[in-house]
């Protein structure tokens, strides 16, 4: 009964979404206030029914209702309850329901917050969001109903959740990432609404949009960081980024999101770059949709691809073309009407000079967008090539490193210069005078530190480390300046947000550089009681013993890590075989540290008591995720701050 209730609620939500596209929209054209006001109640109703539907699916999972095909496919009676819950978004249908559910949450937040916006504008925003919701609900209902029954021969037990997904990191990774993806629909709706009314009105839409962009970006950052962290310890080969097509799909909106946040700041404070900001918000959402399309259509096979149905891909592609094509057409017609309003009103022609914060931001956003375009090219190239020649190929990760990194270096150089320079104009000499010391110090440290600690220096390390220290020192300098001016408590949340995010970027860059250049990876064949050395550490393989868990059997290795005779850690990596599907899984054991991780994962038994084992030394790898978290914290602070 409960799954039918969920299905029914889904259909009701679809009807409400349809109404939301039509009724308030008619109100806008007829200038009928009462009709426009229906948008809020329609959103409330939609949110209620989608939540109900989501809870029904959750109930079916927790109650092990294997007559529902989707539950049978991705759950099992012996699963711990928490993984039954995360089973909801482990497959195509459920993750799409999650998408729609989060969209309705964002929509509800916008409608609750909409009282500070003019009615006509908030109505437009909700109509645009309603259209997106309608499209996705239609998609869900027509091609991927999660409540479809498997009758009369329903299985007694489910096929089990893919063991690789049975992990705490994977409980949160999809919802948080989706929260970010879907969140970019809100700035998109604001941008379309601004274009919609561009002929007749001049509204400070940039100010209204700000918090939404920052919030969505914060979620996206945490989602990506969680995914990277999960891949690091769960996939068992110690990488934290693979340039996998699906990773790229989340990375591209992230990059454009950075550009959008900064361009939006200029639009908000200076009234210029308005059409650039609008274009960026359309692109950010387009890339979010493209990401959904790439992952869900299954045209790219990767870690994340589900088993697929071509109908779904066609529907999503059509929807993508409709939404983005429509928005870009509107942009082409209307963007010219957006007035460049200067800080002092329309007649301030808002001149910008070469050395100014505006230029720093403009140049960075252009580089970010070009960088994103190269990632897009690398991601889609196999598809394009296959379509024209029928030859399959893949683009190797060296392409991304070779093209993306040089494009992003100018942006990294500019990060500390932005906050230190002034709006409008700035003498080149002034800026140079301000950061001369920081520049020299970061250069010297970048050469000295690796030489002292690692005894080897290479161009890449000096460049990466130098950039990281440069961003860190420059950010510290601008924080110090601001505090001296306004006092510690006088700084706005937005300013703290900037400091946290830029500081996080410094930490991220340092982490990426050091782990890429100084990691030590050894795959070897080893027997119990053997000792091996890796970067100052001695590792003793003590023994290996059989283990048994609630839904798996396997072996556990016992390793003792010591440094200069002192024991540092004892690590117990495992190899598990999940009974239901017969899938093997590696459970790595990591001794985490601020400056280095020791990482051990078991390979296979090779006979004669010996095992293949991976033993890795990963310096500064935690800095990558710490930096990501600081960036997210910064954007949440910015989203929270200055709301009028």
């Amino acid at each position, binding site marked *: 009964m409960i799954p039918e209730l969920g299905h029914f609620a889904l259909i009701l939500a679809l009807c409400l979404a349809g109404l939301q596209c039509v009724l308030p929209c008619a109100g806008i054209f007829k200038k009928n206030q009462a009709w426009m006001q229906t948008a809020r109640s329609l959103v409330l109703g939609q949110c209620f029914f989608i939540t109900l539907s989501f809870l029904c699916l959750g109930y079916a999972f927790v109650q092990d209702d294997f007559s529902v095909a989707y539950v049978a496919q991705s759950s099992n009676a012996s699963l711990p309850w928490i993984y039954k819950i995360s089973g909801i978004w482990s497959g195509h249908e459920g993750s799409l329901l999650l998408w729609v559910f989060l969209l309705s949450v964002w929509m509800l937040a916008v409608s609750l917050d909409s009282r500070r916006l003019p009615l006509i504008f908030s109505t437009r925003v909700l109509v645009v969001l309603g259209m997106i919701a309608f499209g996705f609900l239609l998609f869900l209902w027509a091609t991927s109903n999660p409540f479809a029954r498997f009758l009369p021969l329903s299985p007694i037990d489910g096929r089990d959740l893919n063991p690789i997904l049975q992990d705490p990191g994977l409980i949160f990774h999809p919802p948080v990432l989706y929260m970010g993806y879907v969140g970019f629909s809100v700035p998109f709706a604001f941008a379309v609404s601004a274009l919609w009314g561009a002929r007749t009105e001049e509204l400070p839409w940039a100010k209204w949009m700000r918090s939404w962009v920052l919030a969505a970006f914060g979620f996206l950052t945490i989602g990506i960081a969680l995914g990277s962290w999960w891949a690091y310890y769960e996939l068992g080969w110690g990488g934290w980024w693979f340039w996998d097509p699906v990773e790229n799909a989340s990375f591209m909106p992230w990059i454009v999101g950075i550009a959008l946040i900064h361009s939006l700041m200029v639009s908000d404070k200076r009234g210029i770059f308005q059409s650039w900001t609008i274009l960026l918000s359309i692109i950010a959402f387009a890339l979010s949709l493209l990401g959904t399309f790439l992952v869900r259509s299954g045209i790219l*096979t990767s870690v994340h691809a589900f088993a697929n149905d071509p109908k779904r891909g066609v529907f999503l592609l059509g929807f993508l073309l409709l939404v983005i094509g429509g928005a870009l057409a509107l942009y082409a017609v209307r963007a010219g009407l957006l007035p460049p309003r200067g800080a002092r009103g329309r007649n301030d022609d808002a001149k910008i000079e070469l050395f100014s914060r505006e230029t720093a931001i403009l140049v960075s956003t252009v580089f970010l967008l070009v960088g994103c375009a190269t990632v897009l090219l690398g991601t889609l190239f196999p598809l394009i090539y296959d379509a024209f020649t029928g030859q399959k*190929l893949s683009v190797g990760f060296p392409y991304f490193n070779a093209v993306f990194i040089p494009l992003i270096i100018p942006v990294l150089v500019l990060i500390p210069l932005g906050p230190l320079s002034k709006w409008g104009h700035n003498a080149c000499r002034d800026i140079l005078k301000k950061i001369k010391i920081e520049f020299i110090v970061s250069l010297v440290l970048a050469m000295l530190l690796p030489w002292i600690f690692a005894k080897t220096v290479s161009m890449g390390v000096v460049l990466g480390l130098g950039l990281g220290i440069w961003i860190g020192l420059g950010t510290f300098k601008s924080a110090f300046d601001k505090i001296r001016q306004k006092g510690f408590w006088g700084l706005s949340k937005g300013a703290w947000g900037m400091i946290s995010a830029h500081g996080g970027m410094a930490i991220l860059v340092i982490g990426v550089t050091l782990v890429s250049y100084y990691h030590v990876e050894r795959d*070897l064949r080893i027997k119990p009681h053997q000792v091996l050395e890796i970067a100052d550490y001695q590792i003793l393989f003590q023994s290996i013993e059989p283990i048994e868990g609630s839904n798996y059997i396997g072996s556990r290795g016992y390793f003792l890590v010591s440094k200069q005779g002192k024991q540092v850690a004892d690590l117990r990596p495992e190899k598990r075989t999940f009974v239901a599907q017969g899938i093997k899984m590696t459970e790595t054991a990591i001794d985490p540290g601020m400056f280095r991780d020791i990482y051990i994962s078991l390979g296979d038994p090779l006979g004669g008591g010996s095992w293949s084992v991976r033993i890795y030394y990963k310096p500064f790898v935690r800095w990558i995720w710490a930096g990501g978290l600081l960036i997210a914290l910064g954007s949440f602070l910015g989203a929270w701050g200055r709301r009028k």
Partner: protein
Amino acid sequence: MNSIRKRRLIWMVILGFSTAIAVFLILMALRQNINLYFTPTQISQNRLDEAKMGRRIRIGGMVEKGSLVRGKALQLEFVVTDFSHRLTIQYSGILPDLFKEGQGVVASGRLVGKDLFLADEILAKHDENYMPPGIKP
């Protein structure tokens, strides 16, 4: 032509040029890093001119049952098949968890002989129903 137009024209030309150079460099980087994908049948049908001995390519197929042989240290060898042709693959390292005899696998590396492939990376898919492209049971 007035001066504003002239300046704009110059900017357009500069912009056009730099875009062309950037696109050229990007395409070069792309060319050097694409890994073409072949099935054992394509390899055996003398399509080696395309595969170019020694160039990095990918091979996809099913791991033949009972073909996995381990050597010293982490050396190992197995056979991939697309049910009409076979190719021996040599690899040194740790196999992914989802590597199983009788299931799909994609190997990246270089062809060193007519039927010997030296792999430096082995990928197995996370979905047990996965079939490498171009393979029909």
